[in-house]
């Protein structure tokens, strides 16, 4: 920003206290506000210019003062001027806005991930450490937070106005947004996509804590099982480990370390294994066949909730070895004891 930071702070504080302007609570907020002030400036200049022309001409050429109108066809110079200058201004706004957009929707790689599930009419936040919140979100300052969001039913939209970020929460696929909070406090969460009867009640609070306070909070609010642990349970109980056991002769590919890797599919495509891929592979396996494997995986569409899918995705993300996969495989079969040492299990 080319304005002195002191002046900026003063301006923003004055505006915020007047209840006419939201607080700036994230690192991106000042950037958004800068664009907003530029746009306001253009608008004020534009409206002033047009009003001056109208009022000026009205006074100068009113009938009493100017009884005979003069014929004027036009002026190519003027047409060019008021085509080029607005176009130039709008293009500046376009570039600035595009840069801001890419900033807001491209999270940094070290972002801490929190899952958000929206449903009529509440927000569920799932922290990887196993903290579950409803209509609330606790985050630390000074750390980029990525929200991976999905809807269980209709379109919703997760909005944090004081952070200047918002993204649609869509049924059927993940959408993401990120922010870095700067100031401890509580801020609004709104659902901004009309979603039925209690759309206006689908609101909550983001609580921004200092890193120390946040650490304390995570310790006191955990449900005891991290998402990955819940995912491990689900992985076993749904029978995923039967095919994805990690054996050489297994019917499904090993999932250890698969997250973040590039996978070769039977149709020749190479895909990056990310959250969206994993979720979709569970629900529509036939479109995600790993090369060398038969299309026998059943679909789990309708059998696992979005939270369950999140648990599984978290689990697979953290999976480095198949030791516990195989452990849970044998312990789920009632007449066999767990192996003494990690190793191959009799098929």
């Amino acid at each position, binding site marked *: 920003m080319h304005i002195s930071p002191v002046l900026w702070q003063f301006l923003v504080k004055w505006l915020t206290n007047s209840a006419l302007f939201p607080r700036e609570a994230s690192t991106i907020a000042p950037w958004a506000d800068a664009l907003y002030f530029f746009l306001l400036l253009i608008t004020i200049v534009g409206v002033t210019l047009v009003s001056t022309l109208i009022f000026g001409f009205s006074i100068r050429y009113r009938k009493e003062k100017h009884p005979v109108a003069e014929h004027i066809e036009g002026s190519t110079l003027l047409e060019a001027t008021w085509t080029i200058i607005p176009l130039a201004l709008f293009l500046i706004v376009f570039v600035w806005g595009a840069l801001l957009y890419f900033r807001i929707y491209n999270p940094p790689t070290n972002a801490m991930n929190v899952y958000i599930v929206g449903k009529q009419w509440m927000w569920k936040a799932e922290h990887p450490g196993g903290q579950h919140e409803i209509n609330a979100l606790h985050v630390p300052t000074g750390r980029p937070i990525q929200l991976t969001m999905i809807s269980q039913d209709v379109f919703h939209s997760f909005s944090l106005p004081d952070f200047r970020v918002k993204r649609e929460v869509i049924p059927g696929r993940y959408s993401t947004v990120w922010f870095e909070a700067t100031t401890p406090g509580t801020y609004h969460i709104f659902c901004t996509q009309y979603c039925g009867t209690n759309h206006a009640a689908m609101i909550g609070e983001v609580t921004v804590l200092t890193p120390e306070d946040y650490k304390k909070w995570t310790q006191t609010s955990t449900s005891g099982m991290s998402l990955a642990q819940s995912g491990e349970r689900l992985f076993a109980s749904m029978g995923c480990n039967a095919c994805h056991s990690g054996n050489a002769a297994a019917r499904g590919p090993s999932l250890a370390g698969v997250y973040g890797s590039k996978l070769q599919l039977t149709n020749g495509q190479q895909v990056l294994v990310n959250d969206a891929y994993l979720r979709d592979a569970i*629900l*529509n*396996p*036939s*479109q995600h066949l790993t090369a060398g494997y038969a*299309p*026998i*995986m*059943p*679909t789990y*569409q309708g059998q696992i909730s979005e939270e369950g899918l999140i648990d599984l995705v978290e689990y697979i993300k953290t999976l480095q070895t198949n030791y516990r996969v195989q452990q849970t495989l044998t312990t789920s079969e009632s007449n066999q004891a767990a192996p003494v040492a990690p190793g191959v299990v009799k098929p």
Partner: protein
Amino acid sequence: MDNVTVATETHAAHEEHHVSLPQHRHHFETPEQQREAGTFGMWLFLLTEIMFFGGLFFAYLLYRNWYNPAFVAASNQLNIPLGTTNTAVLITSGFFMALAVWAAEVRKKTFLVATLLLATIFGLVFLGVKYFEYKEKWEKHHIPGASFDISEFVNPPRDAKTGKPVEEPLSPDMAQKTQVFFSLYFAMTGMHALHMIIGVGLLLWLIPRAQRGDFTAGYVAPIENFALYWHFVDIVWIFLFPLLYLINRHPV
């Protein structure tokens, strides 16, 4: 200064100057203007119909791309002999319609009525064949909804001779997507059939009037403009048939 002409033509004088058809609408200056306006209007209307069907075609192309295996398997369920017959029937109907336009222009009343009748009959044959196609889908439980059955796609029947499945078996989730194909199939062919039914209705209105001689005394606009509509409906089918029935068809 004279920017408004002082016209002296009275209605009688007007008739002396050209043959005034009884159907000449008096907000038009000349019958030519009326005819041109009518044709232009019909072309514009057909443009709106293109936009209307366009939405469905767009959805179809999108989903065909996303769920290709399901769409290929589902489209192989369509009856090619019946579809081809229908294509031939519709083209023939269009041919008779074109002949009807000529008949009206050269004022051959009996021929006009005959060709209009033939166009209608072939149109009805098309609809009849469509009925049988839809009935087949009903019997095989391929109508989208509660009774939709994907078992044929998951476990395709085997060829008697080679013992191999006639179709690549689909996994259950991909097999579910065949429902999307059939939804679009019924939406697109159904919308097309609806336009055919409207066309047949219009033909049934035109034929008695043709018999009365309404269109063989110089006033051909309804026949011409209806022919445009009928040819359009024909063209929509000519797009539907390959897109729904023919592409990715493999030898049985």
